């Protein structure tokens, strides 16, 4: 029985944690939130120097050639510090997509640049407030011309390349296309969102040059594969954020006195925090299994991905929200650090589609495997 991360993986986790503690206090998230900067260049540079953008990129492409488990422990720490960097879009989504579906030419061209941090990539799926599906993707590619609108695209204002979910008019299947963001015919409109510490943009493509990727006959399945992979990694970020929210709430409950007692001695607060803890542990356990399935490309991969996402989203949303409630009035002020997790919980919880979407996905999978 060895259902845990290895010593090496735990060491990596500590190393990342120490770096972030040092370079990525919540003041960094605040500075991005309050400024016009799109992400923390310093933190990003540090992550690159640690080689983390190339964690799962094979050594032949200049990466560390490590596995998904390493990426999971990194994700948890990035979530814990609400790091304002394009890691999820560039690494979990774009890099993994290129690894999975890039042509050998594309891999040779881009993976080394991603590993070395020379470029930042992102992934564009959503086109409207309606749940994206095989039927309603309207961004098209004909030959190598891309047309359509995508929003919100994380880090879309400054990413160097973008993996775009497209309808391939030639084969009339869903596929992925790779576009260089400095190409002509691309309009980028920065979006106002609930979490200004993470950049999001609307991208409009007008006959923009793009290269189709190698998704073969998978059609929509290639999108599912990318989302399921990212779901597990983002779930670890959510766990990190949830744990940070719980410990913030706990510290306050111990420090704050009302009616001559620590507020942490009142059952209303104790039970609230116990509920946070329970949700977090449930999420963690689901995510461990998700990590294992992702790493082993196991048979339960899709189920575990959906379960990890549902549990982690529920845990982070609740913890971030009730952390504010535990703080009372002070927790709702601009000066309070509670807001970073409150905002981030929605960005992470909605990025790949909401709970409603993923619960339904989960049951679809259960039905397919006759588990339910």
């Amino acid at each position, binding site marked *: 029985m060895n259902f845990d991360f290895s010593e090496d993986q735990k060491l990596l986790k500590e190393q990342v944690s120490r770096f972030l503690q040092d370079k990525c206090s919540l003041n960094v998230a605040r500075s991005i939130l309050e400024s016009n900067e799109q992400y923390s260049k310093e933190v990003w540079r540090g992550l690159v120097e640690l080689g983390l953008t190339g964690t799962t990129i094979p050594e032949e492409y200049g990466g560390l050639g490590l596995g998904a488990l390493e990426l999971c422990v990194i994700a948890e720490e990035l979530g814990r510090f609400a790091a304002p960097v394009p890691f999820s879009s560039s690494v979990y989504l774009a890099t993994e997509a290129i690894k999975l579906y890039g042509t050998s030419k594309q891999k040779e061209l881009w993976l080394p640049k991603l590993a070395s941090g020379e470029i930042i990539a992102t992934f564009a799926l959503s086109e409207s407030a*309606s749940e994206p599906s095989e039927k309603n993707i309207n961004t098209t590619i004909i030959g190598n011309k891309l047309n359509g609108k995508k929003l919100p695209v994380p880090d879309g204002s400054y990413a160097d390349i973008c993996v775009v979910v497209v309808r391939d008019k030639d084969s009339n299947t869903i596929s992925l296309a790779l576009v260089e963001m400095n190409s002509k015919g691309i309009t980028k409109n920065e979006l106002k969102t609930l979490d200004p510490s993470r950049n999001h943009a609307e991208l409009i493509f007008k006959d923009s040059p793009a290269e189709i990727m190698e998704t073969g006959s998978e059609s929509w399945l290639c999108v599912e594969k990318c989302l399921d992979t990212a779901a597990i990694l983002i779930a670890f970020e959510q766990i990190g954020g949830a744990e940070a929210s719980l410990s913030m709430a706990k510290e306050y409950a*111990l420090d704050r006195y009302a009616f*001559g*007692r620590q507020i942490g001695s009142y059952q209303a607060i104790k039970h609230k925090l116990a509920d946070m803890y329970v949700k977090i542990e449930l999420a963690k356990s689901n995510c461990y299994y998700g990590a294992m399935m992702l790493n082993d490309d196991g048979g339960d991969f899709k189920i575990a991905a959906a379960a990890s996402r549902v549990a982690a989203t529920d845990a982070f949303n609740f913890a971030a929200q009730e952390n504010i409630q535990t703080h009372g009035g002070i927790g709702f002020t*601009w000066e309070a650090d509670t807001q970073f997790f409150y905002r981030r919980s*929605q960005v992470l919880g*909605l990025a790949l589609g909401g709970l409603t979407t993923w619960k339904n996905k989960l049951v679809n999978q259960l039905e397919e495997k006759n588990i339910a």
Partner: protein
Amino acid sequence: MDFNDTKEEAEFRSKVKAWLKENAPKSGKSGGRYDPLDVQDEAIKEARNWQSKKAEAGYAAITWPKEFGGLEGTPIQSVIYSQEESNYNVPGGFFEIGLGMCIPTMMAWATPEQNERYVKPALNGEEVWCQLFSEPSAGSDVAGIRTKAEKEGDNWIINGQKVWTSGAHFSDFGIIVVRTDPNVPKHKGLSFFFLDMKSEGIDVKPIRQISGGANFNEVFFNDVRVPDSQRLGEVGEGWKVALTTLMNERLAIGVPKSADYSALTKLAKEISLNDKSAISNDLVRSKIAEWYVQAEGLKYTKMRTLTALSKGETPGPESSIGKIVSAPKMQDLASFAMDLQGASGIISDPEIALLHSIFQNQWLSAAGYRIAGGTDEILRNIVAERVLGLPQDVRVDKAVAFNELPTGR
């Protein structure tokens, strides 16, 4: 069973209708208190004009005694007036706290001369009042006040900080509770004053909230002198006076308009889930049903309260459930509505987000609404204790001298 006016109520309503038709400004800015600071100077002028008109007609304080400029009307009459006034977009948002909490406290505790001086100007809207109770270390525990006042001749010197003070920046006067004796138990060492907000040593700073707005202020007191003649109630009996104010506050806590089941329905009809219109999704439908039932429950609870008023009875405790239900609902409903929009749910630009980002705004502000004017938890305590008669939690702070209570940071 019906919602109809009694004969008397109907007569009063038509009088009010007629008067409003005649006098209500055709286009007035509503809000004010919750507007960005810069637009308020303009708004307050309009509000003053309207307020003085109301005062002349006696509609500014319908239930007050005639001597104070009231109509000596019934509570249901003031409800009827508000119902009718709400059909017009009249300016407001500046005088509620003064006339709802401060002046009633004055009428109960100040000298005839003082009331002679202060009540009418407040009623006419010439002078605005604010309430200075909450402090950084006195939130749910209102009596945990640390701002102190020391006697010096005929004056008291106030030092400390108040917080969450609505309208402090445009108020002329304020009522304040301070600690005049830290060596006795918490509730026994307080005294109550009214003061000129323009006094030297008062510094008002807006508090910015997560939601971006700044509806409240911090107020700092640095050697602020207040004449002893402006003390309400005896020295050390400030808590007794404060209770008069807080009693009125409970009545004042309203339920703000918010995106409800109908907004959710509108959204669901505009988007698809699983390639089907979201309104056909059974989960969405069951949520709409639950929130509809809650909204209706509160609506008809209010009708029951009004019925009691109409019969001249004191309303039952059911009126206390409003915020317990509506505050978490605001947050849950907004959260669910954002969830249905997937990745786009985070877009808060009203030009782009569906329904002008009403859900995103509500999700942000609801986190504060669950806290302001009594947290979800405190309100449940109040229902449990005042309505159900359950005992208070153990109070370790009642027998101990205030300056010996543990305080944390």
